[in-house]
């Protein structure tokens, strides 16, 4: 194959561009609820996002990356012409990156995940052949796009109902908040750690058994819980704050909890969305490195995960903090007791999807989770137009990503020769 270095550099640049875009726009949706509820400041949000997006991408981003890289296209068909896969992946990256840039400019609600999946399916079906797409896998991905918001909604509904029963609707909500919130903190740490462990940390040199997984997750949960308890103990109660609104002090306890769920959310987002940027890069790199072999067996090089995680953090620092600030200002009706239920439910769903290797939309999952809290009569007013917007974004994003990817695919083919 010719132009190896050129193609490799292009892949890295496009991948970085895409990761940057995710950091600039997508992360804000994941962090906005936490900032909006007043639980954390923008500075803290950026810091949390930077650390945990990277950690999520690095520690748990492998599975979805694998799906994007080789789960959608049947690469067996391309063993004779590996360069087509390279062009296609480059085209998909470029198409998705540009589409996201355009869409965010105009404020269209698009999903990174849907764009990249649409782009890959598009170039494969048109550029290579209809049979090159693993339609079964694509079907399960699309199904997960419906299931994930629904699942997040169900989880957040019950989470919030449990908060109502255990804390808010009792005669001593503040005492009960102090009593039960540590348990939710434990739950947050436990779930995230467990899914991450189960997916395996082989790439950082850690092999574990099932019992060890549970044990480790349990320890992580306990440690995080004790950190939380320390913060709760330090909490200063302001008796005057409860005059107008009797739950002001209770919400302060939840605000501490929300710091932890914000971390979980950033971690979950990183673990799922980094793949959108580095999945195609990984595909290109493995083909080029193996000298044209379609290396289905090769592992994901760690530096690619770092590239993706770093790109996200870069986008976040350069541009994303402004978007977070805007969203935070717009979400004022969400109190920490709701915000935590929605965030934890979304983070759990996303992290499970990451473990299963399903690329889903974090934003849509979060929307489902917020609606779940709304169904438990927890939120003053929710705009149901958002559901229509989501469906619209599906209808628009998938073909847009696909068409642009097809265009770039044939352009590259013409440029580098098929």
């Amino acid at each position, binding site marked *: 194959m010719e132009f190896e270095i050129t193609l490799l550099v292009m892949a890295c640049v496009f991948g970085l561009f895409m990761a940057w875009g995710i950091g600039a726009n997508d992360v804000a949706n994941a962090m906005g609820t936490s900032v909006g509820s007043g639980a954390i400041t923008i500075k803290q949000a950026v810091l949390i996002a930077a650390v945990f997006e990277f950690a999520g991408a690095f520690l748990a981003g492998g599975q979805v990356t694998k799906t994007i890289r080789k789960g959608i296209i049947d690469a067996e068909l391309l063993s004779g012409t590996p360069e087509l896969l390279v062009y296609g992946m480059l085209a998909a990256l470029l198409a998705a990156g540009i589409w996201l840039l355009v869409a965010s400019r105009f404020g269209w609600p698009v999903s990174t995940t849907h764009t990249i999946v649409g782009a890959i399916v598009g170039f494969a079906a048109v550029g290579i052949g209809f049979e090159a797409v693993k339609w079964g896998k694509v079907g399960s991905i699309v199904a997960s796009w419906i299931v994930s918001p629904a699942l997040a909604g169900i989880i957040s509904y019950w989470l919030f109902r449990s908060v109502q029963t255990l804390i*808010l609707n009792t005669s001593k909500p503040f005492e009960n908040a102090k009593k039960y919130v540590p348990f939710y903190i434990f739950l947050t740490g436990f779930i995230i750690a467990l899914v991450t462990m189960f997916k395996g940390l082989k790439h950082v040199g850690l092999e574990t058994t099932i019992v060890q997984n549970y044990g480790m997750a349990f320890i992580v949960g306990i440690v995080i819980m004790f950190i939380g308890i320390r913060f709760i103990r330090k909490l200063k109660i302001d008796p005057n704050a409860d005059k107008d609104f009797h739950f002001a002090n209770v919400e302060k306890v939840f605000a501490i909890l929300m710091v932890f769920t914000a971390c979980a959310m950033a971690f979950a987002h990183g673990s799922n969305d980094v793949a959108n940027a580095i999945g195609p890069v990984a595909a290109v790199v493995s083909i080029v490195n193996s000298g044209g072999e379609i290396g289905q067996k090769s592992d994901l090089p760690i530096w690619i995960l770092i590239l993706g995680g770093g790109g996200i953090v870069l986008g976040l620092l350069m541009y994303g903090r402004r978007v977070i600030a805007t*969203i935070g200002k717009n979400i004022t009706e969400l109190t920490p007791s709701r915000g935590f239920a929605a965030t934890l439910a979304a983070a759990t769903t996303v992290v499970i999807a990451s473990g299963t290797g399903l690329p889903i939309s974090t934003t849509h999952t979060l929307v489902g989770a*917020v609606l779940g809290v709304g169904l438990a009569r*927890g939120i003053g007013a*929710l705009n149901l137009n958002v559901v229509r917007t989501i469906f619209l974004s599906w209808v628009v994003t998938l073909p847009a990503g696909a068409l642009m990817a097809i265009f770039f695919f044939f352009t590259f083919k013409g440029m580098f020769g098929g």
Partner: protein
Amino acid sequence: MARTTISSMFGSSPVKPLQQHMAGVQECIVELVPFFEAVLEQDWKTAKAQQKKIAKLEGAADKLKRNLRMQLPRSLFMPVSRRDLLEVLTMQDKIANKAKDIAGVITGRKMEFPETVSDQLMAFVKRAIDASMQAQTAINELDELVETGFGGREVKLVQSMIKELDAIESENDKIEVKIRAALFKIENDLPPVQVMFLYRVIDWIGELADLSQRVGSRLELLLAR
């Protein structure tokens, strides 16, 4: 910067505006006390000024009402039914309207009240204002109701407030019966048209408490969905 998917899904809660409207209504109707004091003393200058003040406050409440209606599109998903919420708003608004009507007709006709009923009349007005104040107390619990997700203790608390409101209203009814009886005894000595309007004003003051009670019962409907 355009709003993102997440931020666009949060509408502004109707709770605070509804409470502000009720506060505006209350502000309007408490002015009936100095108004009636002036009327009973036949101090028409003060009465006129009070009447203007009441009309102005009613207008302010009206504005709040319209603003709230504008921000409640059908696509909004709320923990309470949109229709019941708008009903509460309408009832609240009717209280202020009625106060304005009462002040208006009394000032317009420079009505005189027989001395035998004046004490009872004052008590009657004050009790009606108590009723709307109690309605306001209950409405002020709405944000706590949303916070607790309309469950448990908070609901019981609001229910007890509404019960209290019902008690005030029925007390007000009793005062009304007494005033009517007192008026009936002397009505033949008064000009018939004046008597007609006296009954009408008494009726309207009774309606004030009645409307407050209805705010309470609509609120009760909000609790159960």
